[in-house]
């Protein structure tokens, strides 16, 4: 073992090359993980915080007829639940007069919220960059893009909103813009408008109905448990309750395959580092042909030679995995501490996935050993006399 170490450490260039190959392989996976998994988690976070909560309750067919306050109270009695809030959605046509000019915009998504509960169960109110969140029956928060489309609507402007109710009648109401919402990542309400849920109920003629109940948990790992308990408690109400993974599945499916592909690229990177190790180990074997011949001549068995080069592979793997993991963790810490964002907008959700970190380090270590097998085997095949003559 001492000899194996010496042989390797005396060839510093080869050692550094092999270790770098492993390090880069691991680093690529860590960087991919930080960026793409971080992006994925950030989107999950935003969907959860802005739209679906940890559990989203809807009706199997259309709208929830049960009183929203009953459902909210039921949820808030559970210790795992932070808060719950009702939501109702529709689309509207909007008009605004800016500088004497009438500007119209159609098919704008409108979300009705209960301001009191909403600020506890969701962080949408934090995306209001100008003005305040919905606070009264006639206040409206415009998404940044909607505000732009309406000729640069600002806080205090009056917006005329027209909604077709459940009977097909057009209902019109004037709102005062109380705030402009802007959030990165596309999951916020930049393309929507937010009004009081009771106003939207009146306008859509759905006075006792709710579109969904968004439930925020203080322990998201209990989502499935709470969901099942809810469904068992209301067996006859045609409720549908979904965890964030279930409710956002469609939106996340594309990202999942993207991440799988990026991970595969990372693993291909790791495979290339294995080829680099094979090359470097072959160089080491070729450079030590004479020494191998001498060792065989003075009694080293083929197994002893095999062990020397496999041990070198283990050393390369261990050092590479150590340095790679340390560098990768360094990058992850940097990303977390600096609140790294994607495209300078969406803050990444950086997590330390220890299972994956250990898995990657172990995979690199094992790959380095596997990559050493062929060169080691070649070394054992050298005949002592030939090796001493040609080395």
């Amino acid at each position: 073992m001492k000899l194996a170490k010496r042989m390797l450490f005396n060839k510093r260039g080869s050692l550094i090359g092999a270790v770098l190959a492993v390090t880069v392989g691991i680093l690529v996976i860590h960087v991919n993980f930080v960026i793409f998994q971080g992006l994925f988690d950030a989107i999950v976070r935003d969907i959860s915080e802005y739209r679906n909560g940890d559990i989203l309750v809807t009706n199997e067919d259309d709208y929830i007829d049960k009183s929203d306050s009953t459902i909210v109270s039921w949820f808030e009695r559970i210790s795992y639940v932070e808060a719950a809030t009702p939501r109702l959605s529709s689309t509207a046509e909007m008009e605004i007069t800016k500088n004497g000019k009438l500007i119209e915009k159609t098919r704008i998504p409108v979300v009705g919220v209960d301001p009191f509960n909403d600020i506890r169960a969701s962080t949408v109110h934090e995306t209001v960059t100008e003005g305040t969140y919905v606070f009264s029956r006639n206040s409206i928060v415009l998404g940044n893009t909607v505000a732009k489309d309406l000729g640069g609507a600002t806080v205090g402007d009056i917006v005329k909103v027209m909604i077709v109710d459940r009977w097909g009648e057009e209902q019109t109401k004037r709102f005062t813009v109380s705030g402009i919402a802007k959030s990165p990542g596309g999951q916020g309400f930049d393309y929507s408008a937010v009004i009081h849920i009771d106003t939207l109920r009146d306008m859509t003629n759905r006075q006792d109905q709710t579109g969904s109940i968004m439930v925020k948990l203080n322990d998201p790992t209990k989502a499935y448990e709470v969901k099942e308990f809810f469904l068992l408690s209301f067996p006859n109400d045609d409720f549908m309750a979904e965890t964030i993974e279930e409710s956002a599945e469609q939106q996340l499916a594309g990202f999942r395959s993207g991440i799988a592909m990026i991970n595969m690229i990372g693993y291909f990177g790791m495979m290339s580092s294995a080829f680099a190790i094979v090359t470097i180990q072959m160089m080491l074997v070729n450079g030590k042909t004479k020494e191998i011949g001498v060792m065989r001549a003075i009694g080293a068995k083929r197994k002893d030679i095999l062990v020397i080069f496999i041990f070198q592979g283990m050393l390369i793997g261990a050092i590479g995995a150590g340095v790679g993991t340390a560098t990768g963790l360094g990058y992850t810490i940097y990303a977390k501490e600096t609140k790294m964002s994607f495209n300078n907008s969406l803050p990444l959700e950086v997590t330390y996935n220890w299972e994956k970190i250990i898995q990657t380090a172990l995979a690199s270590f094992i790959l380095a050993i596997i990559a050493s097998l062929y060169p080691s085997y070649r070394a054992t095949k050298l005949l002592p006399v030939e090796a001493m003559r040609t080395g």
Partner: protein
Amino acid sequence: MKALDDVSFSIEKGQVVLIVGSSGSGKSTLLNMIGLLDSPTNGNIFIDDINTTTLNDNEISSFRNKKLGFIFQFSNLLSDLSVLENVLLPLQIAGNDLTSEEDAIDLLKAVGLEDQLHKRANKISGGQAQRVAIARGLINKPSIVLADEPTGNLDSVTSQLIVDLMKSMAKKLNQTFVIVTHDRQHFGNVDKVITIKDGKAFQVEEFSTMEITV
């Protein structure tokens, strides 16, 4: 064409035997066969009453490690190791721990290298390297030390020192040496000289006593 044919001789314990002959005569091939680095297509080689031609690869390695010592023309030390570590290498290969380090130091003292123990093998002179090789060849107390042109790469003064050292070690340790050389003059009196010509043992000369001149 046969590299060696009809070669038959025996060596007694403690003898210093020279194998001489012109280049390409087959003397190194003969030494490699005695050293189990090469195997004959026909015939047998007995060392310590063991027919070495029947051994498998692992047994050959063990046999080489325990019963044979090697000194090569270019010393062939492992440059990554120190002088002392090179001498200890056969013991480590045998799986012994370093309890025999004292033996190695004694041997290095005997070859006059007690002040070079921890020097890297590639930092010493050719003569010193060959002395280390002698110590390495002797560390396992082998039945035979096989030396292939041990002075072939040295100047005449150093060559004589190495020859004298080998002969004195042979006498002191009652150690059998089989030495291939094309320069018989340097060795003076030895116990036996086998002359190989065209792959055959052309002449085997035996001498009753060996004079040691150190």
